[in-house]
């Protein structure tokens, strides 16, 4: 069976999941393998330290912008609630509640 035939069939989403799983496992394992051979420089460490927040900002801003005013207000509400309460469920509820309320108003 060719790759094209596999991707045209019902197994295609599972190929995508397998590709994600492989990519993730390589990330999990490579730090341990690398460290037994080379040392991470302070520059590489700083780059990796900046990564998690950079991913979040780079994902959230364009998606919220694209989704329009209610989504941007929802993101802001989630940020404010999380800063104030440090409680994920409250932040999620505040954010989704804001989106739903503004959409119900026709925005």
């Amino acid at each position, binding site marked *: 069976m060719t*790759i094209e035939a596999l*991707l045209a069939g019902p197994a*295609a*989403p599972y190929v*995508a*999941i397998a*590709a*994600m*799983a*492989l*990519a*993730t*496992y390589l*990330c*999990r394992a*490579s*730090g*341990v*393998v690398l*460290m037994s051979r080379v040392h991470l420089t302070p*520059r*590489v460490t*700083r*780059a*990796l*330290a*900046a*990564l*998690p*927040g*950079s*991913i*979040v*900002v*780079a*994902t*959230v801003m*364009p998606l*919220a912008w694209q*989704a329009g005013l*209610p*989504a941007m207000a929802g*993101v*802001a509400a*989630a*940020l404010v*609630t*999380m800063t104030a309460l*440090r409680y*994920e*469920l409250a*932040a*999620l509820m505040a*954010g*989704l*509640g804001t*989106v*739903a309320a503004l*959409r*119900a108003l026709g925005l």
Partner: protein
Amino acid sequence: MSDALTNRAYGCNRVAPRMSSPPCTLRAAAHGARLTLPLLPGITVFAAAFGAAAAGKGMTFAQVVAMSGFVYAGASQMVALELWRDVWSLPTIAAVAAVTAVVNARMILMGAAIQPWLAPAPVSRNALQLFFLTDASWLLGTRYNAEGGRDHGMLFGAGIALWVVWVATTALGYLAGALVTDPRRFGLDVLMPVFFAAMLVPLWKGPRLARPWAVAGAVALAVKALVPGYLFIIAGALAGMAAGAFGRDD
């Protein structure tokens, strides 16, 4: 004693090659599982949110469970939802794998940090151990190891307990989300950016990160406006990394 002499003789302070393998006990595994308890509220909310969002994107139950079970990395699963589609091709699969690798590249740093603890163990044990390594278990493990703990069972216990909770709760979130007939009305279609925004708050470790984050956001917005698809996530993340690497130290 003889090791110390050998090291001195060779003029290096490398760890002796034949160090005894750290223990891996069930007792420590139970301890590790217990240590995850305070983290469960946040993780179950995240898992349920992912499951509900996946239902909104039209994934099947089996796909959601398989993704949570085999990928087991929430942030990358959330981002992958944005790229999820009905029809796949080699380029789209390569794209979802590349985005996953970028989102999970932080794990390279996590693995590197615990390498001295893991390295003396057999490779097969570490290969399995690393599958279950996740942000929360890593954090608990580094604390345990810093306090003198060496038992690899602790890391296994925390990682496996979190895996079970993650898979089970994404399944429940999916079933709940599938009940919602109009996801847009409740804002479930933008659940992912809203939840991610909340996740940003605990990541804030002071103004040193402000510039990388701002660069990441600006580049992502610009790339999104210019290039179709989801390249903006990778471009923004890499720009943020570069800004972090070459930024001035405070």
